[in-house]
């Protein structure tokens, strides 16, 4: 019983911290700064939120952002997982690909924006491309290290049980063994991709989008609305992460329960 009481009080500590942060923010904004252009107060932000809900643009913004994010993430998985598998499975392919990847990887995703526009025009695809660049490397690297780390004993046990073709070894042994690492890579990719979203929408690829709207209201000097979008971006990113973890752990990684991770 003590344990659960402890759990509840810890949860309340978190809630208290959030409330406290909002109070401090309100005091600073309304009491000290007193300029909602420089620092909108929580009350200003809440009013702006109601206003934005009334305009009905929040849902389309959200949907457009999801489209951009979806394009980038799906492309990153479609490219990153096969490349990561091939590099993790074949030393030769690793030696072949590694220099190229290590050269491309340090280029910030946002530096690709000019080429995104030239290649894809002002379309959702170019925003998707920027997100893809941000998301693909974590997927490759985690898939690769997951495959590298597959214990040899599993591969040999598989071989002794008639699983001898490379394709089958990857499908039945290496991929499931590497899945925790692959999933961690996808999680990181989601985070990075979501962070690229605001910049990717900055150059006007669509009329809506959370990042797009954030820039729009900045240009309109409506900093209270900017804060609304900042909070929405943060909450949406958090929600994705939680949903992903919950789903993956429920459906694919339940065998890890009871293991010391």
């Amino acid at each position, binding site marked *: 019983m003590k344990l659960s009481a402890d759990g509840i009080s810890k949860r309340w500590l978190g809630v208290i911290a959030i409330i406290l942060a909002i109070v401090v923010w309100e005091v600073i904004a309304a009491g000290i700064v007193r300029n909602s252009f420089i620092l909108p107060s929580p009350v200003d932000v809440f009013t702006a939120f109601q206003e934005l809900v009334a305009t009905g643009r929040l849902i389309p913004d959200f949907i457009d952002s999801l489209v951009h994010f979806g394009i980038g993430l799906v492309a990153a998985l479609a490219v990153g997982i096969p490349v990561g598998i091939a590099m993790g499975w074949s030393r030769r392919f690793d030696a072949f690909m590694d220099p190229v990847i290590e050269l491309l990887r340090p280029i910030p995703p946002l530096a690709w924006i000019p080429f995104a526009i030239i290649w894809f025009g002002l379309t959702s695809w170019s925003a998707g491309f920027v997100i893809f660049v941000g998301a693909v490397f974590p997927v490759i690297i985690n898939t690769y290290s997951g495959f590298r780390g597959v214990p040899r*004993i*599993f591969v040999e*046990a*598989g071989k*002794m049980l008639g699983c001898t073709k490379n394709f089958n070894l990857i499908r039945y042994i290496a991929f499931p063994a590497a899945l925790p690492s692959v999933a961690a890579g996808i999680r990181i990719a989601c985070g990075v991709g979501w962070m690229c979203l605001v910049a990717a929408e900055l150059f006007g690829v669509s009329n809506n989008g959370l990042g797009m709207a954030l820039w729009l209201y900045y240009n309109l000097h409506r900093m209270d609305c900017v804060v609304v979008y900042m909070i929405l971006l943060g909450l949406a990113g958090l929600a994705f992460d939680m949903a992903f973890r919950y789903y993956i752990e429920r459906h694919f990684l*339940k*065998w890890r329960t*009871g*293991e010391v991770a």
Partner: protein
Amino acid sequence: MGNLEIRDLNQSFPREDGSRLVVLDHLNFEVKDKEFVCILGSSGCGKTTLLRLIAGLDEAQEGSIVLDGEEIKGQNPKVGMVFQEYSLFPWRNVMDNIAFGLEMKGLIKEERYRIAQRYLELVNLSQFRESYPSELSGGMRQRVAVARALALDPVLLLMDEPFGALDAQTRNMLQKELLDIWEETKKTVIFITHSVDEAVYLSDRIIVLSPRPGRICRIFDVELDRPRDRTSVEFAKVRRTVLDLISQNCAIQ
């Protein structure tokens, strides 16, 4: 059938200075069908190397390994293996681990579960069919590994110190269970161990390897009736004979 012939087997590995480390030196022996043979030796005598060659996981430099008149090259469905380390697939539950080989053979689900169920019962783990390996004790994991190897009905079962990591009681219990399974399924078994007690308890024959390079030092027939009593005078006598011989002739030179 499960007749195994090892002919003139040589294996060496390159060393850093360019010379070669001879691990197995002209090994010759036979294992008869349905025989339980223990290969006994201290660590570094090449017993795991030998087993991996028979399993087809590595290739021998020279010599041949012939199973029922057919030379072993690569993995062979007629040979099953139980590894020293835990080798169960942690992402599959017990049933799907045992059924893995059958799945690779392309059997439909009902069929492979029907067969797997039989082996699950053989190792007395029916109530754990849905459990994941992380939920099992070390002894239970090795029992599942035995069932998984047997599910493909190999003629030859290779066991590489499978009970080495277990505590003494569990070890004794599993040895007894293994003999029961062997009586029931009548496979040829090659069992690697460094424990004289284990070798005397289990085997029809003990092949003692001497280390560096691995050579056959001596082959014993164990003529004790089963079930064997570890505390009996006869058992102790055989143990003493084996131990004496190892300390006199088979130690590191």
